[in-house]
């Protein structure tokens, strides 16, 4: 259901944040504004081609996270790590997450409350929109731009129109944020040069891990920013992670949206995206072809959270990964890994015949650990199913929730997790 809105209303969440960061009373779609950046996150890949700046804006508004290629799989990556450590030391960057306290940057951002409500966060990784789960204007920018922000402390945005998703009802057991996102991507397709905003009466029932999955995946429909309204659940999460003071940004009662769409959470079923893209290419699992899979992957900034390892462990306890299937589970951070060990999840997952790796972006971007060969079929809970993304361009990458991926690893075929959960 869609409703066109009037043209002269108040501000959306993103407009509110950008106006505040630009020191303006209001901004409108089409405006280009220069804004302060509250937190700028550098990742290991940036240090592959790196020159130390002569001066930086603020070491306390800077963090460095080693994530994409750790522990270093190549000499080039090892040398990037050397440069990152030197830079952090020389410029007094206290928020430096080296191997051992590392993780995928968006997970580390969440664990350390670096993305705060109402603020602006930048990072080179395209899934930086993950921070939108915490009511933050967070998005990926290129490496050169992040160097610019490191130097000047600010950047510019052209304000895009916002698509509002009004959440109603509650998710059924076994249905996750990935299913919400795949339903949206499959139904509405790309949101290029638009922001996505999530709120509504159903929001309170959506756990923070599912919000982050949804926010992370906003990049996959080409959105600029993806952001959630702030609520008590978000506030409790941030308090538990030692958040500094912040001022949330809520949409005005007459905020102006390009379109408002309703999602009935209670009606959602497990979804699967077919290979290539999620955009108008994701369907209820019952409508997707019965395919044998050779690799199943649970990991990435979207679905390598502690809840994903919990779901994996619960489904795998007393079961076995099917012969001929590799199930790879990559915790999103060293903290997730340690918690999952402590809670027994790693034991359950490994006992079932799966491989639990160290935390890294690794297999998700086809760089190290878990690449696909020609002719193989993968079902992944990670972020992206582009052709060639995880190895050979002649492999096929389907995408689904952690529950669907793990269930399918047990059966060896793309399987509706409700068959097991029931």
């Amino acid at each position, binding site marked *: 259901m869609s409703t066109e809105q009037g043209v002269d209303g108040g501000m959306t969440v993103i407009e509110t944040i950008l106006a505040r960061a630009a020191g303006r009373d209001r901004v409108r779609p089409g405006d280009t504004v220069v804004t302060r950046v509250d937190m700028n996150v550098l990742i290991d890949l940036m240090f592959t081609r790196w020159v130390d700046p002569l001066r930086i804006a603020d070491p306390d508004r800077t963090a460095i996270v080693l994530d994409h290629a750790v522990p270093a799989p190549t000499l080039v990556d090892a040398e990037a790590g050397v440069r990152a450590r030197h830079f952090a030391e020389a410029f007094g960057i206290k928020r430096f997450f080296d191997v051992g306290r590392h993780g995928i940057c968006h997970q580390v951002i969440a664990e350390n409350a670096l993305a705060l409500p109402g603020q602006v966060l930048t990072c080179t990784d395209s899934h930086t929109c993950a921070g939108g789960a915490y009511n933050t204007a967070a998005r*990926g920018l*290129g490496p050169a731009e992040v160097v*610019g922000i490191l130097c000047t402390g600010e950047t*510019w945005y052209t304000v895009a129109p916002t698509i509002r998703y009004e959440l109603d009802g509650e998710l059924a057991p076994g249905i996750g944020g990935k299913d919400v996102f795949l339903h949206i991507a499959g139904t509405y397709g790309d949101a*290029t040069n638009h922001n996505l905003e999530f709120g509504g009466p159903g929001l309170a029932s959506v756990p923070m891990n599912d919000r982050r999955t949804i926010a992370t995946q906003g990049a996959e429909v*080409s959105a600029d920013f993806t952001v959630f309204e702030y609520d008590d659940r978000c506030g409790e999460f941030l308090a538990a992670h030692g958040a500094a003071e912040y001022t949330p940004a809520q949409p005005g009662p007459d905020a102006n949206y390009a379109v408002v769409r309703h999602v009935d959470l209670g009606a959602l079923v497990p979804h699967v995206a077919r290979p290539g*893209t999620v955009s108008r290419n994701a369907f209820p699992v019952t409508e997707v072809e019965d395919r044998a899979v050779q690799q199943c992957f649970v990991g990435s900034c979207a679905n390598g959270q502690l809840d994903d390892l919990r779901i994996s462990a619960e489904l795998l306890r007393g079961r076995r990964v099917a012969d001929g299937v590799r199930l790879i589970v990559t915790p999103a951070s060293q903290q997730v890994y340690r918690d999952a060990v402590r809670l027994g999840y790693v034991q359950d997952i490994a006992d079932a015949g799966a491989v639990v790796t160290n935390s890294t972006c690794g297999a998700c971007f086809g760089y190290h650990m878990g690449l696909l060969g020609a002719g193989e079929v993968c079902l992944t809970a990670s972020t992206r199913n582009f052709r*060639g*993304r995880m190895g050979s361009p002649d492999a096929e990458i389907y995408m689904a929730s952690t529950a669907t991926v793990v269930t399918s690893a047990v059966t060896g075929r793309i399987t509706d997790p409700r068959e097991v959960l029931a």
Partner: protein
Amino acid sequence: MNHEITGRTWVIGDSVDTDAMYPGFAMKLPVEEAARHVLYDLRPGWTEQVEAGDILVAGRNFGIGSSRPVAALLRHLGIAALIAEEFNSLFLRNAINNGLPALAVPDVRRFVSEGDVLTLNLATGQVDTPAGRLDAAPLPAMVLDILDAGGLLPRLAAAGYLPREDA
């Protein structure tokens, strides 16, 4: 930079993503080697055919995907400008910040066939094709400034933030 660019066109489709232009395996290679793998699967052999000054024309949602700096590879291949019916905003910013002009021209593929020579003007938005003239939105002054400096890093060097010799 000269705001008027004339070149021979290459035309690709909708939603050409960053992994198609800068595949994961190429991220382990130096720029000059990685550049040989642009469109490795979509247009095998293309990087051998591209000549300095060529213009790459794409459809909608051009450059969806990651922040890996595809523009650095395209510049290495000699691509002089990008035109697309619609750009992913991260990809567009990455192009500009790497000093590669990029102009959004809705419906451009209705007027351009591969191999056509066209002229675009970044400051006016005018595109002259063999099939006629198109008028797109010009690049904002802020963006032209970045391109005039040769990209963001040279501009930061000029402003004293980065050592000049390395920018």
